[in-house]
């Protein structure tokens, strides 16, 4: 205790002499402050979400009304259709899910939640966002080179992606690949920073088991990302050389092996889906404990299941390739590992649900989003099983059943959990509350029409409708009027879904100036970020906190209050 006191003293002293006013540029553009960088990631991510959403609008309209001119876009040619789905997928995963969930909230919250004033390497952090920004520019540039943007699907299987004569997008393919690689580099840089910060910069007294789940999940996600992305980077280098230098790594006619790319891609691609899942799970954990006023059910159990899932996810990748021409005997092994993943994930979800048991639940906006996440993600999870079992995937592969499955996982993660986090930490970030009525409109609109959008796609999938088709007229069985009716229904829901984003955008920006002021700890939560003023000043805390207990001590018997902040020395 005494030694922490001295730490306090030195740190408080060290503290003062890096407060000083900065110019606009150094404050908002080239800032090294983790909060500013986090917000930069968030705004870039939301803008990209709008772009990805716009692509989705354009190609869904084309599917509902083939050949008609799409308002705001025009007639969609097959080339454009492929380009839009490809970039829709790439953007939503690499430029929305990862930056918002991991980079934005990671950068903003990790230092606050572990009770220090910044990342361990602020300049490294700035480098990361700059590389990320460049990657966006490269991606946008790829739409305007002649031949147009890359249209070979976000999986970019060679030889289509490696030979310009086949893809007909010579530079589009290369720029797309370059952009993705840059984005990966940005995250590797940022990841190193996250890990080091969490390991070393924790507040005095904060044990590993006092670290909030969100910080854990983000760091585990980063480690998984590092472990899975390496081979893909190697593969990307090879693919790039195939495109530009004429090597033949993936070209069968010259002894290359196209299926190898698929292994490299999915060895990354499957862990990647959990890389984005875990931070979302972390967000939800923080929220449900806060609003149920309950200690998280089985902190350790949740950690173990997350680690178990992470480990398992490295040996399931070929479930994307059951019928891709791999040795059929391999499929059996991967079926086993894939279906078994349901066990740890089920445990995770059960722990979350058990957390509600005996609680005193207040349904504020963040809580509503968190619950919506659990429900919708469950749908996505269970529909993964018929895909995971080879015997049915040999039919479902590349049908809209897959599309529906992963939108029922990705949408809850990248959009619903993202909104949950936004509504939860908005008061901290901007010192004001968002308008609740608008929030409710946004919530119900989004959740209802999200289901209206993707439920029908399960049916289309079961009817054998396959993916990445700009117009089903060439497949008479799929061109029937009632299937077309289902498509129109889905698209209508999408349009409504997008309209219901308007109240959010308005709410989001106007509340920054007119929302009611929020005090430091509006939700009466335990974790350290709520010990800082809202919005936290440069340097975060008035006095750097010392940690005395775990993050989820709610409704502890013998306390007057039903929450017990981590930094509070004595009973509350």
């Amino acid at each position: 205790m005494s030694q922490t006191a001295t730490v306090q003293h030195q740190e408080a002293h060290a503290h003062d002499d890096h407060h000083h006013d900065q110019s606009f540029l150094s404050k908002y553009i080239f800032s090294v402050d983790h909060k500013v960088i986090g917000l930069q990631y968030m705004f870039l991510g939301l803008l990209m979400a709008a772009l990805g959403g716009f692509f989705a609008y354009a190609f869904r309209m084309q599917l509902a009304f083939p050949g008609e001119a799409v308002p705001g876009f025009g007639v969609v040619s097959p080339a454009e259709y492929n380009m839009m789905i490809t970039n829709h997928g790439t953007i939503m995963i690499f430029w929305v899910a990862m930056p918002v969930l991991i980079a934005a909230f990671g950068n903003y919250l990790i230092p606050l939640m572990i009770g220090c004033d910044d990342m361990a390497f602020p300049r490294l952090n700035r480098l990361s966002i700059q590389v990320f920004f460049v990657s966006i520019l490269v991606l946008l540039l790829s739409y305007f080179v002649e031949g147009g943007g890359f249209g070979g699907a976000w999986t970019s299987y060679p030889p289509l992606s490696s030979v310009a004569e086949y893809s007909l997008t010579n530079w589009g393919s290369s720029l797309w690949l370059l952009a993705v690689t840059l984005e990966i580099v940005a995250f590797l840089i940022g990841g190193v920073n996250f890990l080091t910060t969490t390991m070393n910069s924790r507040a005095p007294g904060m044990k590993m088991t006092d670290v909030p789940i969100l910080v854990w999940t983000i760091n585990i996600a980063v480690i998984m990302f590092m472990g899975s992305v390496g081979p893909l980077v190697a593969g990307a280098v090879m693919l790039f050389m195939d495109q530009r230098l004429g090597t033949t790594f993936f070209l069968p006619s010259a002894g290359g092996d196209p299926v190898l790319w698929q292994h490299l891609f999915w060895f990354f691609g499957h862990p990647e889906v959990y890389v984005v899942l875990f931070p979302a799970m972390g967000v939800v954990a923080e929220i449900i404990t806060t609003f149920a006023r309950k200690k998280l059910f089985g902190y350790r159990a949740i950690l173990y299941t997350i680690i178990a899932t992470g480990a398992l996810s490295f040996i399931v990748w070929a479930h994307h390739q059951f019928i891709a021409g791999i040795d059929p005997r391999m499929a059996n092994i991967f079926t086993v590992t894939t279906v078994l993943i349901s066990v740890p994930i089920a445990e995770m979800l059960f722990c979350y649900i058990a957390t509600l048991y005996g609680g005193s639940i207040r349904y504020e906006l963040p809580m509503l989003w968190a619950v919506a996440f659990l429900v919708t993600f469950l749908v996505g999870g269970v529909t993964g099983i018929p895909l995971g079992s080879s015997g049915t995937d040999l039919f479902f592969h590349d049908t809209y059943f897959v599309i529906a499955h992963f939108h029922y996982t990705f949408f809850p993660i990248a959009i619903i959990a993202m909104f949950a986090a936004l509504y939860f930490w908005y008061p901290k970030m901007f010192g004001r509350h968002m308008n609740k009525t608008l929030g409710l409109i946004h919530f119900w609109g989004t959740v209802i029409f999200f289901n209206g959008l993707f439920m029908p796609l399960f049916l289309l999938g079961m009817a054998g409708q396959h993916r990445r088709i700009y117009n089903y007229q060439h497949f008479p069985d799929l061109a029937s009027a009632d299937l077309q009716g289902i498509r129109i229904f889905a698209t209508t829901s999408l349009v409504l879904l997008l309209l219901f984003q308007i109240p959010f955008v308005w709410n989001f920006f106007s509340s920054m100036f007119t929302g009611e002021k929020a005090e430091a700890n509006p939700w009466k939560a335990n974790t350290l970020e709520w010990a800082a003023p809202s919005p936290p000043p440069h340097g975060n805390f008035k006095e750097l906190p010392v940690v005395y207990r775990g993050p989820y001590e709610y409704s502890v018997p013998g306390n007057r209050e039903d929450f017990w902040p981590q930094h509070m020395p004595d009973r509350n």
Partner: protein
Amino acid sequence: MSMQGPIATGRCATGIPSARLAVWWLLASEVFIFGGLIAVFLLYKFNGAPGMEDASLTVTWAGALNTFVLLTSSLTIVLAHDAAEHGDGHKAFKFTWITIAGGLIFMCVKAFEYYSKISHGVGFTTNIFWSFYFTMTGLHALHVMGGMIIMGLVSFDVRKGRNLQRTELVGLYWHFVDIVWIFLFPMLYIANF
């Protein structure tokens, strides 16, 4: 930021300096990149991709020489680190530059190899093996050059007795570059089956 920097940078909950941790994590992610490349190469080799037998055409003695050079330079950087530990900036400076010289020799031999290959019309696209050869050694060479530059930058501070610990960090990185080569050498130069 003031010279002081944020407190986060100074903290050390694990007892391992943040800088060293960061370098370790960086190398970890590098390991997976080279690991992936190497794994892919072996896959092709065992599936008998065309041209793999060309491994016999690589200049084995040059590779061996380079292995020797790199190992020695690894030793000298250790000596530099040791000197830095004892606060002897000048000695550390000297050994760092000997290491850089080692890197330079390595690059010259590489350049000679590349030249002799390309002048015989063997290049990137000759066949899968040569594609791998140039990709892997090229990527590695880039890392060598990067290391040399960083060591150069660090060394001058070190001579003035500032940031001595950085000698250790570049040392870690240099060992990694070295180890990668230890893997590449037998695969590309010796194992020609």
